[in-house]
């Protein structure tokens, strides 16, 4: 199980929780699991999310491995100028 920190706006779609635990070994598994457990997160996942794994931001990369002790933070998908 990995703990995933959700940003504030997503919490209402996850029963008000700031942090949820899901079974996932990769970024892709994590997104799939989140979308199926909390359908309210699906629109934002479709628009795009980034993943901060132990402080490093990944914008895509499905197969990024997530360890059980990793710090996992969901972030909106971001662009620069």
């Amino acid at each position: 199980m990995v703990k995933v920190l959700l940003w504030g706006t997503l919490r209402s779609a996850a029963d008000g929780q700031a942090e949820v635990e899901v079974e996932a070994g990769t970024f892709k598994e994590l997104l799939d699991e989140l979308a199926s457990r909390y359908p309210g997160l699906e629109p934002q996942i479709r628009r795009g999310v980034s993943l901060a794994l132990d402080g490093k931001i990944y914008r895509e990369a499905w197969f990024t491995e997530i360890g059980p002790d990793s710090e996992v933070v969901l972030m909106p998908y971001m662009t620069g100028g």
Partner: protein
Amino acid sequence: MALDAYQKREFKQVGTRPNRPDGVDKVTGRAMYGADATAPGMLHAKILRSPHAHARIVSIDTSAAEALAGVKAIVTAADFGVPEDDFLRDVQDHCMARGKVLYDGHAVAAVAATTIAAAKAALKLIKVEYETLPHVTDVDAAMKPGAPVVQAGRAYENVPAGMSENVTHHCEFGHGDLDAGFAKADRVVERHFKTAATHQGYIEPNACLASVTSDGKAELWVCTQGQYFYRTLCAALLGMEASQLRVTASEIGGGFGGKTMIYMEPVALALSKKAGRPVKLVLTRDEVFRATGPTVSSSMDVKIGMTKDGRITAAQARLCYSGGAFPNTTVDMGAQAAFAAYDLDAVQTLGWNVMTNRPKESAYRAPGAPLSIYAVESVVDELCQHFGLDPLAVRLLNAADKGTKSSYGPTFDQIGLKATLEAAQAHPHYTAPLGPNQGRGLSCGFWFNFGGNTCVSLNVNTDGTVGVTEGNPDIGGSRASISLMAAEELGIPYEKIRTIVADTSSLGYNDVTDGSRVTFAVGLATIKAARDAIRKMCSRAAKIWGIDEEAVEWVDGAAVPAGPNAGKFPPMTLAEIAAVSAETGGPIAGHYEVNADGAGVSFGVHLCDIEVDPETGATKVLRYTVFQDAGKAVHPSYVEGQMQGGAVQGIGWALNEEYIYGTDGRLQNAGFLDYRIPVASDLPMIDTVILEIPNPGHPYGVRGVGETGIVPPLAAIANAVSRAVGVRMTELPMSPPKLLKALEAKG
């Protein structure tokens, strides 16, 4: 340790300042920009634009224009489909209004004709019947109940019920107990801020040359920050296959984020398709201001609590951004960046995006961050002044560091903020004397930085030279940086490398030149492509010597036996291996394709001295110093250039740049005369101090440097003004009439 992780090394070429490879072309007028290309049989296109801020298009009659001699094609929204995907539909609707015009300058029709004069004449013959609608251009007004609705039904699921339909997006970030935090403070300051939209202000107007042939093939020559993304969008909107549309990036005359999005390229392609001839479309400066680019405008509230010894106990920001007539999420980035420089126990940022009758916002250097950080850094400075605390010491006391849980969630790895603050503290600028009506301001800045999709192909030529093919337009000397990294890795002189920017048919997908990503990600891919080529060259040497591949290593540009057991062979240079490549197995090339992550966040600190003329409210910038962490400055001149250019754009944003709308909803200053970007005589030298705290995610330690520099100037100048004349400017720009009014109100 990952293969691409940072390894400490002594650089031989990285960190030097050789001449850029495209220099001579650019100082002799030979470099080809967007508007500089021609094609046989080329037509010229012009776009008809809405004079209304908001109106229903009742009808468009193009018959008289079509009958005009020389007119070869006219397109309107009817010539495009209606994409199902929201994002694509918005992109297209921005290029050509469908049903409604949403802002002054919105395109409604376009003409291709044999001459520019004929195209202009044809525009006048197009009859558009409008039914004008109430409009709204101010972010606060657009949020009010009963405000004119720019587009209905566009709100995301995250917007709380009961808000104006113009509110399309809501976000919230942060952690900790705000109430408890504010209760611990000795003083809590809450201020309201408002900032005007600004434009990237690139000097080259958007321009393209499109050629679509009857067999479905197409060429697009265009000034862009990302030829691949332009291809993706144009192909989707025109129903073309990506392979049939070759997009070539011209030299680009500035972008700063503004050329990461298409504005009129599909229109040129559609005209070319309809006319059966190449079509050139060059925007006027007026069109650039009215229909491309601008940033969000904002209305913000920031509340910060501080103890009397300078510790921030809680911080909160409410950000309302308007990115024009379409939904966008730039406020996400502003909200996440707002408090990134601080180590906080209790922090919350709330954001809303609001639609207004203005052009669709485009990225501009660290999109969203300059505004929110301006507001935050202003309030921090006000608290420092209240307690009589040194503003640098307070920043150091509260600075985020390795291990800090950031205000947007993740825990920071190695970051350079404290070192950057310490460099500013130790710099003579910080303690230099000031005269009357002069003040010194300070601000931190932050940007995330990104990596992204990147391909590099590196070809070893038989004469011992090397060609590097990359896919990101060179917007500020990146060919030089890429060549330097290739030279460093291969161990051959910089002069032996030539780096070119490929078209979309010559290399795999590359993300847009944005997010401060090129030197980081293309550099990473170049180093890895060079390593790929080195492996192949070692293998050739091994074959020639009749030893195992593993027994050969690459030292100073040559293959050498790895140790005494490998055999005694003299080093074989790259040139020697290349010369016999045909005989040893064929051409030698290295490749690397990656979606790079680990760009590493970037912090900067700016110091500025200004003087206010108390009788006129004019602000003069006297001295300016930028401190920023580059990880590793590959070509220091171009790193300095990014910092200087970003700082001056921020100075413009702070002092004079703004989109000014009349009560009729029309843009009043669509030109360089009244959209006032800084001129040479407005400025002092911009001093730079580059720190090099290696990014653990890059083999040479490189961090992106392009965007952070625009973030701090807004607050640095506001803080300097406050310290010079005792007024806190909470509205940008701090133009002289506003500053004089504030001075008079103060008395």
